């Protein structure tokens, strides 16, 4: 079966077309290959009503995804809540804020389930039996879980110093978890070499053109959940920069297929100061991304020193009128707490980065205070719980005594706050 919408792969640099195979690099100039669609055909087939009639998963936008047949892996992924967060907006000093809450994505509590659903479905279409990835943790969790659910063998390669929860969250599914000594960029380089030797589906190497498209569904959902309109400001965390470029692509695709009105949308990028090659290049006004040899940040899921899509992320931010920011470890922790205390959402360190950078973008006027902003929160806080050790106060422990409890409440809220004792 062939898709009537997904036609080719194409080099982003020179535009050469390639067949829809397990290939990610242009032979001519090493440029990245990207999925190409027949938007005219999609426009004729699709409508808001049609999409709304489908189940609430990322696959309601399947005309825009690079498969030939029906999805077979991760069929329940996506359509996470878009939460209106008024208390967060007030704290950030902006008129209106929404949280796109991928901390509750199914099944592994991060946006990576989206890209894995697409890439493993494609891997099965192509007949692969072993799937693999280079990961900072979330992707490893998702490949391990989704592969297990359909009986694919999986190898996940991660830096050996990841958070305990992220390692456990891959091992439990029976995946072959390989820790590599060194930062993520070395894991990535090794995986590129392995992918050139073994006939495996490396989701973010030889299947990257398919994989990356899954991120668009986060953008489609945001627009639909806003009532079929584009947000004027979106803040997105950047590791490789792929998510940011794909959310921008999703907004463009909704415009060209007449699903939303063409309105301006600024795309802003967020990094950790300890690994900020993209935001640093943006600030300097160049598109030459200077790699960071030794990333040092608690936001390990964003610690990519040589970001594959850094160049395109910078172009996207500039062209859309967005900006880039970065946040220190202390600001990241404060961001996690602010989101939890004002919106009731517990995000991993990357979410802290997004909140902290949104705050800075608003404070500097790059996001005007009368604007409406969407924050993309990409992973659950329990995955990086150790980052908060020593930050939060311990619970106070008392005897099971009402008198002790009264004493505790009066020290918190004052004597006057105690309920009056009812006379017998």
């Amino acid at each position, binding site marked *: 079966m062939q898709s009537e919408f997904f036609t080719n792969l194409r080099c982003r640099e020179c535009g050469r077309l390639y067949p829809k195979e397990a290939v990610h690099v242009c*032979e001519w100039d090493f440029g990245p290959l990207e999925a190409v669609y027949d938007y005219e055909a999609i426009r004729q087939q699709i409508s808001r009503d049609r999409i709304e009639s489908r189940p609430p998963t990322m696959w309601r936008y399947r005309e825009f995804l690079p498969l030939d047949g029906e999805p077979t892996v991760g069929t329940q992924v996506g359509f996470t809540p878009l939460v209106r967060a008024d208390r967060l907006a007030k704290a950030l000093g902006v008129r209106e804020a929404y949280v796109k809450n991928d901390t509750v994505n199914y099944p592994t509590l991060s946006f990576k389930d989206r890209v894995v659903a697409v890439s493993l479905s494609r891997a099965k279409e192509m007949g692969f039996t072993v799937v693999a990835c280079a990961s900072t943790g979330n992707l490893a969790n998702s490949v391990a879980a989704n592969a297990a659910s359909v009986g694919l063998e999986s190898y996940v390669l991660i830096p050996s110093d990841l958070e305990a929860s992220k390692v456990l969250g891959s091992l439990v599914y029976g995946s072959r978890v390989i820790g590599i000594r060194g930062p*993520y960029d070395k894991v990535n380089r090794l995986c590129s070499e392995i992918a050139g*030797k073994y006939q495996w589906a490396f989701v973010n190497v030889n299947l990257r053109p398919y994989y990356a498209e899954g991120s668009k569904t986060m953008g489609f959902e945001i627009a639909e959940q806003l009532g079929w309109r584009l947000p004027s400001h979106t803040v997105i965390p950047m590791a*490789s920069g792929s998510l940011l470029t794909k959310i921008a692509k999703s907004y463009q695709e909704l415009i060209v297929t007449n699903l939303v009105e063409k309105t301006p949308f600024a795309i802003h990028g967020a990094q950790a100061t300890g690994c900020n090659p993209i935001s640093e290049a943006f600030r300097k006004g160049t598109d030459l991304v200077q790699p960071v040899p030794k990333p040092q940040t608690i936001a390990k899921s964003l610690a990519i020193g040589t970001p*594959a*899509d850094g160049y395109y992320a910078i172009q996207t931010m500039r062209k859309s009128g967005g900006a880039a920011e970065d946040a220190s470890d202390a600001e990241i922790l404060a961001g996690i707490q602010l989101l939890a205390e004002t919106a009731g959402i517990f995000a991993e360190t990357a979410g802290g980065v997004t909140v902290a950078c949104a705050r800075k973008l608003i404070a500097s006027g790059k996001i005007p205070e009368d604007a409406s902003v969407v924050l993309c929160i990409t992973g659950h806080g329990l995955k990086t719980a150790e980052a908060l050790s020593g930050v939060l106060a311990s619970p106070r422990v008392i005897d099971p005594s009402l008198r002790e409890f009264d004493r505790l409440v009066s020290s918190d809220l004052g004597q006057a706050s105690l309920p009056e004792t009812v006379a017998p």
Partner: protein
Amino acid sequence: MIFNQRKENKTMSEVSAEQTIPVRIPTPLRGLTGNKDQVSARGETIGELLKDLQAQFPGIGERLFDQTGALRRFVAVYVNGEDIRFLKDQETPVGPEDEVSIVPAVAGG
């Protein structure tokens, strides 16, 4: 002292000029290397090594370098797993004991 150092350097270069260095070739370039995933090249620096590759496998140069002679944006070269941008770029010295890899830089994330 200075004289000795010079002498040592000269000896080193004589050795490396005679010996070949293994270079790992990524899939997109294997059409130019007769489908070999590893080839041998000569040179004392990465720049010289890549020029020798071009001499042996015509066409490989225009894949690796842009019109200004700089390595293309998405080409990464590693010596013993270390990105040459963190070493001395094309001036990075190499010897027969080193492992050199050319890797497309559009993976991961």
